């Protein structure tokens, strides 16, 4: 067991002393998290702004509701001019009890929203004026829908991607570098099993994945990004470990074919980058076209992503792990088997 311990320690030291690897393992994915997190933070929060001329109870009610942002104008002409110029979607002009809306036809969705909101307030005011109790009532309540705030899907996506990248690169580069520098032959000349060498390297990758999880979730939970973790977040741990093993196996396969570190690095990028984009690392994959969603199902990263989303932010239970885990384990077994067939001790 001492060989396993010492080897793990040696590889861990090698890992933390390599600044380039540290950068690509932690800072690089974090950069994506921070940049996308900040860019997309206010998406969907913009309120529609309209011009208003005059005042009255309906305008006050609109202003209090916060449904629209109101920009007051003193005369009708300048307000309408703003709409004509395309700066504002609509202008609301109050003539006592008569409300006129002038709207632009270019943005029909926005105009319809504005018209619907104003109409709603006018109807409500009319009903109140009659003093009659309403015949129909309705109550609104939030539901947990499939759409998420950007940080909620960015964090699981970038975490899965970061773990995949560091496991693939970690195993591929270690394998190629050890083969090229003849460390593999040197190990083969020692009475130590290939399993303890391999498992100590996987242990280091797994430890790195857990630290990545802690760091990325920690940063995303800062108030500026505002990630809300679900109660079942800890179910992400088995997923991180299985993902590490699956992508480690992929790295072994890449490393079996690459002759130099540069070639291994390029090959790993060719494998990982398209997979990351098609698996919903940077955007929710259910917003993608149907064909793309189908294609993305062949990637293990897509399933790891789905699992991460479910347990980290959607609050699903252990049943959400079944499909992703099965696929990651299956992938690790198949790819690992192929990798062991094509493995080479020396150049």
């Amino acid at each position, binding site marked *: 067991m001492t060989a396993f311990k010492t080897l793990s320690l040696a590889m861990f030291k090698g890992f933390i002393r390599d600044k380039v690897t540290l950068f690509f393992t932690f800072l690089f994915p974090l950069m994506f998290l921070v940049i996308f997190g900040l860019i997309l933070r206010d998406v969907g929060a913009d309120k529609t702004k309209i011009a208003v001329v005059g005042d009255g109870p309906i305008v006050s009610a609109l202003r209090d509701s916060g449904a629209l942002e109101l920009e007051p104008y003193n005369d009708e002409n300048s307000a309408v001019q703003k709409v004509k110029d395309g700066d504002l979607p609509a202008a609301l002009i109050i003539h006592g009890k008569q409300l006129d809306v002038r709207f632009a036809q270019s943005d029909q969705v926005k105009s319809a929203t504005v018209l619907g909101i104003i109409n709603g307030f006018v109807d409500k005011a009319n009903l109140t004026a009659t003093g009659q109790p309403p015949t129909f009532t309705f109550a609104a309540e939030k539901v947990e829908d499939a759409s998420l705030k950007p940080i909620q899907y960015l964090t699981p996506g970038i975490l899965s991607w970061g773990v995949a990248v560091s496991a693939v690169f970690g195993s591929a580069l270690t394998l190629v570098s050890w083969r090229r520098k003849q*460390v593999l032959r040197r190990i083969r000349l020692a009475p130590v099993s290939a399993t303890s060498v391999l498992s100590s390297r996987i242990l280091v990758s797994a430890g790195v994945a857990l630290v990545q999880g802690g760091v990325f979730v920690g940063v995303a939970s800062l108030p500026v990004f505002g990630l809300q973790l679900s109660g079942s977040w800890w179910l992400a741990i088995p997923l991180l470990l299985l993902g590490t093993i699956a992508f480690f196996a992929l790295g072994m396969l890449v490393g079996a074919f690459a002759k130099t570190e540069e070639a291994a690095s390029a090959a790993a990028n060719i494998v990982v980058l398209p997979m990351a984009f098609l698996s919903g690392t940077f955007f929710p994959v259910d917003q993608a076209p149907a064909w793309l969603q189908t294609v993305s199902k062949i990637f293990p990263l897509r399933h790891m992503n789905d699992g991460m989303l479910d347990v980290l932010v959607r609050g699903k239970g252990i049943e959400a792990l079944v499909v992703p885990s099965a696929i990651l384990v299956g992938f690790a077994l198949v790819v690992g088997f192929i990798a062991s067939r094509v493995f080479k001790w020396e150049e």
Partner: protein
Amino acid sequence: MTEERSAVVVRDIRKSYGELKAVDGVSFTVAEGEFFGILGPNGAGKTTTLEIIEGLRKPDSGEVTLLGEIPWPRNTKLLPRIGVQLQATAFFDKLTAKEQLQTFGSLYGVSPGTAADMLELVGLADKANELESKLSGGQRQRLSIACALVHDPDIVFLDEPTAALDPQARRNLWDVLRAIQERGKTIVYTTHYLDEAEILCDRVAIMDTGKILALDPPAVLVRGLDAPTHVTLQKGAMSVVDASALDGVEEAHEDEVSLTISTRRPAPVLSALAERGALDGLQVRTATLEDVFLNLTGREYRA
């Protein structure tokens, strides 16, 4: 030399890569405690021979016995008893000298404390906490030898340990190699420095194009050549005519700086020179393994 006492027995091994016969019928034995050199130019088949003995390669034909065991296929019983330094310097990434030794030691179940002894042996005690990548070529070479010795093997294989070292570093390494031999280890090493093999080895095998051309102690090889000894004096110490007339002198000639006398009986020549007090700038150059190589192959030795 009986085979029971032999550390290595190699019988007629052959290995081809396609058309190329890398090793073409090599046989030799190495006694326990012997410092055995395999030397020859690049591509002579030294490394392949060594790798077959170590059990890293399977010979196409022939037999190898290493410490009484068959090294191929990978023989885990044998591995703790052999130490191998590979041609390229094989180290783990970003570890200090001491950590490298501890890690390699752990592969053999050696306690971490051994690392300090090994650093001492190869003269790197003060570099224990330096990263391997920061060491000089000679220091790295010594560290890789220490890594091959960390588990106290009976036999050590060193593949060109002195290649690409400056003269000072080479001499430092010679001291290390001698110290290893004094510990009772058998050393099998390859080199393409003939002068070095002459100084260090008990016996040398001279290899070229996959074959052993000669195998003997260096002194025997050189003597067997029957090449003349060259005695060089400062120019003007004696005239060419006088020198040629001395007993035993075969030939004498002079250039701008020195007078060179060739003889196969250096003893009377040297005493005659001493009698005349003509020893200014005396240098005696006997034949070397380079001359042996030239004689064996008919071509100039190029490392």
